[in-house]
């Protein structure tokens, strides 16, 4: 593309060929009014406000759609142009319910701005007002549509269809009756999930937040921060007024470019919940009673000190958190290691991605997403397995859908449930739960037997391929069909698509990791990717989607029992020595205990004191009945949280923490991007940021810690953590940086293993199929799997305190196939009892073909119907991750 010369308002410009007149004017610094135009959606050219005059043309040109041509002479503000724009503005206003005085959008409304710019007051209106359109649709929990304020720019329709890949709303009717809607239904019974993309893109107040901001847009302060929910790490603009969050907007910046999910936009009301913890609590005579910080800290110091003195440091353990900042995770593990003197520090990543860390580190040398979120848009084949991406990583799902819709990618979904992405897939393979190694070996068998592997890549970049070739030899499609129930032909088809696409990317999540064979599963994904040469280049790779906002960071910063920050092994004498020196203390040489081992240890007496920061094992961990007993048998339990969670209720001391809204720091999102958290509210009562609490505790334990702010902590992190070597708060004020980022000049790393694997050569690991630990039998004939849903998060302590989210889903349920519902005499929406060898819950039936016959799915967010009373705590021998995805259960009527 070269430049061409045009004239705008008598001034010559040289502009890139292919630009529109509007783009040319923008480049020339000339402002042209627009309404329907929005950079994120396809041009509609509907409003006709952006007209300009082009010499020699009979009609006016529409700047946003008309490409420039050489020697074009453009006038942007001629009398004819101004008159046209004024008349168009008048037409819009005549059809508009000009309610600016009470409209939430006033001040942030493009139509209002236009009327203002043209000085069209009520008296100078050219045309009589038309009757306003019908009623408002406010049936959605989060938004409302007022047709009387709609200018039919269709931005919302395109946003929902093209950005979100949903198409919930469309243009209805034609001509003057035109409006936006879902069809005959209102929003509440549509599949609208409240992502709010339409709200954000609407230029007027036609689609707006349902709950009024109750504040004018010019009175608010907007503060950019990172979402506290999932691992996508959406950048959000928080509208704050009077120490209250009044509105959330997606920031138009990497990685979410303005999009969010319903939790990010409408789920942050928990911050303001009445039941936030405001003072420390100490258990006295069986009850938790308010205390001062000094009392609480010295009580903890005394108790922990005593236990340590009597039994040594290794009877004390700490659970750090995937929800607190990098700086806090760093300090927490430092406190456990340097102040307490044990490596017994772990966090809930153990329950989601321990197998990823173990598996990918073995295969590639680094246990994180190899590529970046944005790269997915340009993959030619995306294999999604064990990830209900639409619900768990909603914004990533929109990118996958765009890859399919806009860029022709082939999507292969391999999942026992008929998840939403199946609707967008070229191929859906429904495997029997827990047979993932088999189908992956099957695909590799086909690829090798049809000679579709990337020989050059295998020989240059990898090692030990022969072993894998041997192992997969016996995994013929037919044999795999017998194990997985996936038809042999479909395995072949998937293998061909995956192997022959120009770039293929594997996306997985807990459906792969939460198995007793979790590490094997992960190794298989690595085998498959290396076999086809799909690691170390853009838009390819093995991409584990990390669940919680900072689960990546918690791992990176060493909240794991076997590694220091930056995955530097405890067992490696050099690392050990380095940290002893850096922290100025003797450190334990023994790997610590993992989450499940810590819980088990409480019961066996191996662990006596436990400090939990921001975790809720009483809902999140497998086999809850056991967890409950274990926590009750702890000699001393400290919980630091923002709410009195199910776990905190069992504590001896509860410390009130500041939420993400009330502190600074960084998170690391699933694509290894370190992103900034900014304080936008004051913490309630005496709640304090965890990093301050840790400093106080550690100091009181006799290992002084003091930092002016989290930025200073990051500087220390950078000094001991090579992959974070170049991370500074000052560098990520605008956009985050992806590790590895070894030094302050390094621009960060978009995708890993370019040219060479972290470990040198990529290592193939032969993996044989092993069935899940517990399979259905006559007594427990159903397969149970558990997981997350869009509207709630983790143990619900945040999301269930957001009224809008509860309006979507207010309690637990079990997905059961309609055939099973009938057969067992259950009713959709009625009660059901589900039991396993470990426990029983009562919940509500959701009759749906999403699950296969003979399968049950229970979301784990709901303490009153806690899926984890049912789950199996059998562990993967390598990563110690429990098998949360497969258990045998009974389904029965409630007696």
């Amino acid at each position, binding site marked *: 593309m070269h430049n061409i010369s045009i004239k705008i308002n008598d001034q010559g410009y040289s502009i890139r060929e292919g630009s529109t007149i509007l783009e040319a004017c923008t480049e020339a610094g000339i402002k042209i009014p627009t309404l329907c135009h929005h950079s994120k959606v396809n041009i509609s050219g509907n409003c006709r406000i952006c007209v300009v005059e082009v010499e020699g043309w009979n009609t006016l040109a529409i700047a946003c759609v008309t490409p420039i041509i050489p020697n074009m002479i453009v006038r942007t503000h001629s009398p004819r142009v101004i008159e046209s724009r004024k008349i168009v503005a008048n037409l819009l206003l005549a059809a508009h319910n000009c309610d600016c005085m009470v409209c939430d959008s006033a001040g942030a409304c493009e139509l209002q701005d236009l009327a203002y710019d043209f000085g069209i007051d009520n008296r100078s209106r050219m045309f009589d007002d038309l009757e306003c359109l019908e009623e408002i649709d406010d049936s959605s929990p989060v938004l409302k549509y007022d047709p009387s304020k709609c200018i039919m720019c269709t931005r919302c329709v395109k946003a929902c269809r093209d950005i979100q890949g949903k198409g919930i709303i469309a243009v209805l009717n034609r001509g003057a009756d035109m409006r936006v809607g879902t*069809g005959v239904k209102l929003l509440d019974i549509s599949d609208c999930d409240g992502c709010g993309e339409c709200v954000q893109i609407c230029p007027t107040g036609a689609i707006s937040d349902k709950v009024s901001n109750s504040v004018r847009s010019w009175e608010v302060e907007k503060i950019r921060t990172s979402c506290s929910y999932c691992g996508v790490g959406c950048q959000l603009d928080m509208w704050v007024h009077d120490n209250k969050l009044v509105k959330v907007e997606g920031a138009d910046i990497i990685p979410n470019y303005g999009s969010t999910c319903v939790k990010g936009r409408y789920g942050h009301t928990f911050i303001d919940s009445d039941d936030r913890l405001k003072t420390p609590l100490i258990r006295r005579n069986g009850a938790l009673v308010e205390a001062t910080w000094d009392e609480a800290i010295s009580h903890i110091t005394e108790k922990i000190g005593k236990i340590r003195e009597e039994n040594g440091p290794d009877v004390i353990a700490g659970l750090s958190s995937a929800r607190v900042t990098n700086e806090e995770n760093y300090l927490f593990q430092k406190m456990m290691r340097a102040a307490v003197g044990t490596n017994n520090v772990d966090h809930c990543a153990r329950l989601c991605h321990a197998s990823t860390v173990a598996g990918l580190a073995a295969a590639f040398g680094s246990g994180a997403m190899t590529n970046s979120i944005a790269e997915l848009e340009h993959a030619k084949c995306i294999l999604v397995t064990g990830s209900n991406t639409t619900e768990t990583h909603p914004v990533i799902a929109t990118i996958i859908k765009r890859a399919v819709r806009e860029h022709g990618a082939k999507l292969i979904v391999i999942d026992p449930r008929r998840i939403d992405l199946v609707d967008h897939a070229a191929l859906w393979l429904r495997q029997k739960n827990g047979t993932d190694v088999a189908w992956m070996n099957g695909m590799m068998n086909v690829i090798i037997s049809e000679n579709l592997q990337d020989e050059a890549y295998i020989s240059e970049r990898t090692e030990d391929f022969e072993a894998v070739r041997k192992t997969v030899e016996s995994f013929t499609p037919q044999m795999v069909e017998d194990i997985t129930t996936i038809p042999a032909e479909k395995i072949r088809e998937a293998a061909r698509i995956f192997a022959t696409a120009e770039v293929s990317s594997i996306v997985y999540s807990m459906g792969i990791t939460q198995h007793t064979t979790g590490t094997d599963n992960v190794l298989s994904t690595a085998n498959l990717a290396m076999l086809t040469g799909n690691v170390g280049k853009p838009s390819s790779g093995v991409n584990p989607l990390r669940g919680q906002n900072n689960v990546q960071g918690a791992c990176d910063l060493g909240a794991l029992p076997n590694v220091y920050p930056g995955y530097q092994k405890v067992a490696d004498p050099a690392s050990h020595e380095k940290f002893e020196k850096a922290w100025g203390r003797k450190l334990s040489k023994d790997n610590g205990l993992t989450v499940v081992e810590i819980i088990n240890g409480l019961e066996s007496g191996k662990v006596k004191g436990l400090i939990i920061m921001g975790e809720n094992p009483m809902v999140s961990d497998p086999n809850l009945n056991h967890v409950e007993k274990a926590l009750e048998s702890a000699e001393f339990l400290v919980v630091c949280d923002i709410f009195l969670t199910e776990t905190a209720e069992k504590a001896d001391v509860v410390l009130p923490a500041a939420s993400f809204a009330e502190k600074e720091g960084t998170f690391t999102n699933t694509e290894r991007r370190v992103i900034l958290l900014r304080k936008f509210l004051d913490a309630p009562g005496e709640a304090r940021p965890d990093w301050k609490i840790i400093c106080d505790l550690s100091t009181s334990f006799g290992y002084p810690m003091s930092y002016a702010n989290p930025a200073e902590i990051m500087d220390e992190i950078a000094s001991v953590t090579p992959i974070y070597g170049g991370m500074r708060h000052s560098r990520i004020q605008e956009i985050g940086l992806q590790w590895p980022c070894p030094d302050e000049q390094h621009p960060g790393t978009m995708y890993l293993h370019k040219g060479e694997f972290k470990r040198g050569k990529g290592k193939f690991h032969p993996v044989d199929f092993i069935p899940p630990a517990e399979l259905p039998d006559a007594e427990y004939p159903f397969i149970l799997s558990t997981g997350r849903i869009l509207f709630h998060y983790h143990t619900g302590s945040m999301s269930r305190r957001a009224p809008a989210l509860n309006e979507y889903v207010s309690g637990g349920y079990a997905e059961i196939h309609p055939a099973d519902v009938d057969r067992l005499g259950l009713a959709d929406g009625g009660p059901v009892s589900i039991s396993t060898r470990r426990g029983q819950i009562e919940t509500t039936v959701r009759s749906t073909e999403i699950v296969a016959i003979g399968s049950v799915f229970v979301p784990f967010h709901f303490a009153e119907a806690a899926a984890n009373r049912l789950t199996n705590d059998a562990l993967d021998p390598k990563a110690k991750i429990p098998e949360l995805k497969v258990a045998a259960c009974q389904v029965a009527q409630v007696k």
Partner: protein
Amino acid sequence: MPRNPEEIVTEGIIEFGTGRESLVQLLTKVNEELSWIPTIAIEAIAKATRISVAEVYSVVSFYSFFSIEPRGRNIVRLCSTISCAMTGQGEILEALMNEFGIELFETTDDGRLTIETTSCIGLCDQAPAMLVNGEPHVKLTPEKACDIVRGLE
């Protein structure tokens, strides 16, 4: 007995396929056979073509021959454009509404008849004109129009 809408959709899919460009054809098929397009047909079409339900509605609501309200077995479309308007379309409409006891765009209780007006149907040389179930009738008078409609099943 009208056929099950889903059955019609299934048949249509065999005939026209599930590509985006089949949508208007599928809708036309259902609309012609049932006189209208019920929600279940819309949902079945949406599912088969992977077009969202709202978008199918969008197309249905754009074209005036489609209806999401039940209509009569017989549809009278009386031209209301100029050549017909000048030659007595108004009286014919009046007469039809009186005779069959319904207003414009309404359906008789027995589901036999719906009366609609439409833009020029290209029979202006023989105005006033109407289409009854797609068949042209021209040079109408109020009596002639009522006779024709009376003779319908």
